[in-house]
């Protein structure tokens, strides 16, 4: 009597011997069991690439909806083969459009921030060139009016503050008309804004480098580090380089001349602009470049493989300083 009142237990699901085969197509998921289609999920054409991109997640969900207890086997169909499969199920599918969408996603998510460093570093070089051009041109131009002060100033920054201003002393310069002087002043404003732009780009590089390559940034200096990444092509490539290559990075012309014609090999390239370079004797620069390159190569490896998270630059700097002091 009591027994009949008892709540019925759900039927225990039988474990099926035959596995469920899941076919992963670029347009959807299909589950087959004992040769029969038991579940399908078809994606909208516009969502195919996106869904395929995050398919692992979707497969999990899809599996949870299948009410068969069994092993699962995965089967991926892709390429022209998938078009035939789509036809069989009456699904409109264009593999070429799919590949375009998928490649777009790969480009979007394959981006790495070292590419920003490269652009900014190149921009800085170009800005420096522009500043020099402006400085040279305006020295000539303004020099017609006030040659004495052009002769006296010794930095671009100083020059940018006076260019276009009226004279305050006797001069051998020609008395330019107001409108001529005004034009020189306008060009001078551009020079000023270039100088302040250079400052901003440098600061930006510094920030970016401390984010993506903190160790390289500390050992090489942010601007030299950025230049190294730029010439190497990427942080990955720099990390994969032997230190001997890093040592002569930026001196490719001299290096290839050496390989081809047997001239003397270069001792350093970009590393010449490292701040330590000017603190040692000329004859020791080659040795210093070798030292720097070895530490930078370690730093770049730490940066790339830890994605900028590991910070070991204190040890590296200490080691470097010790060896540099032996050089002097």
């Amino acid at each position, binding site marked *: 009597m009591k027994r009949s009142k008892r709540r019925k237990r759900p039927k225990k699901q039988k474990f099926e011997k035959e596995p469920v085969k899941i076919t992963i197509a670029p347009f959807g998921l299909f589950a087959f069991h004992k040769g029969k289609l038991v579940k399908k999920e078809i994606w909208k054409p516009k969502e195919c690439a996106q869904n395929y991109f995050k398919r692992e997640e979707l497969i999990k969900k899809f599996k949870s909806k299948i009410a068969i207890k069994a092993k699962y086997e995965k089967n991926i169909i892709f*390429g*022209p083969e998938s078009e035939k499969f789509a036809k069989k199920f009456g699904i409109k599918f264009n*593999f070429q459009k799919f*590949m*375009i969408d998928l*490649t*777009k996603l790969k480009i979007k998510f394959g981006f790495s921030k070292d590419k920003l460093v490269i652009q900014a570093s190149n921009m800085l070089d170009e800005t420096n060139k522009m500043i020099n051009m402006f400085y040279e041109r305006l020295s000539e131009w303004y020099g017609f009016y006030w040659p004495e002060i052009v002769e006296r100033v010794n930095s671009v920054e100083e020059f940018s503050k006076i260019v276009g201003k009226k004279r305050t002393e006797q001069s051998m310069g020609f008395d330019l008309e107001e409108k001529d002087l005004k034009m020189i002043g306008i060009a001078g404003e551009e020079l000023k804004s270039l100088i302040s732009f250079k400052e901003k780009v440098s600061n930006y590089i510094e920030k970016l480098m401390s984010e993506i390559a903190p160790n390289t940034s500390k050992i090489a200096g942010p601007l030299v580090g950025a230049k190294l990444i730029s010439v190497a092509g990427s942080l990955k490539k720099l990390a994969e380089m032997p230190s001997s290559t890093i040592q002569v990075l930026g001196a490719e012309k001299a290096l290839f001349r050496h390989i081809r014609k047997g001239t003397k090999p270069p001792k350093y390239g970009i590393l010449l602009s490292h701040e330590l370079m000017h603190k040692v004797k000329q004859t020791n620069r080659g040795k210093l470049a070798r030292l720097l390159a070895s530490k930078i190569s370690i730093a770049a490896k730490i940066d790339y493989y830890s994605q900028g998270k590991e910070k070991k630059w204190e040890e590296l700097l200490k080691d470097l300083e010790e060896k540099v002091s032996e050089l002097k």
Partner: protein
Amino acid sequence: MKITKSKFEGIFWIENEKKKIATINLVPGYAPFGEQLIKHKNVEYRIWEPHRSKWAAAIMKGIKEFPLKKGNKVLYLGAASGQSASYISDIVGDRGKVFCVEISPRVMRELIFVAEKKNNMIPILADATNPSEYEFVGEVDFIFQDVAVKEQVDVLTKNKKFLKKGGYAMIAIKSRSIDVSAKPSEIFKNIEKELEKHFIIVDKKRLEPYEMDHIVFLLSQKS
């Protein structure tokens, strides 16, 4: 202006002041690389510049054969921005396919714009030294290879498995990618020896004056 069929399928001679080759534009009005379009009797031809494409240079230099046919499936290794590949796409036509393998996302960006217009170009962002990334391509009639890496022959032999029986391959070799200091002619000799192990060499052409220190080999499969 005189337009005549060349002895190769889908390629035409256009004689203006200079003699140039051209293909029939698959997408009329579309000239993604600033190339010259010529309309003649309701057909639009697209000039194929030998200075910009190594295959065009090989044809201009008089390569014996160019056995690419309408409807062919092609694997193009090192498609870059898709310039040369777009001409291959013109020749194989709507029913053909050009699988464009390129590793650099930067140039792939350009290729995508072209592929969006040409419905037979399939972009594949992958490394040609690792064919397992695009196994799905299946069998192809023709392989073009223009990758500037040191082990160029290795890349081709790795991809040889895609080639159908009786299929052809064309490879452009840049001597400076292999060794900057050695003589190009010696490098090419070595390459030829290596290629002979895997293929029958149908023809070869140096590309001067269009490209310096380059050679193109036309290969067919050993049976």
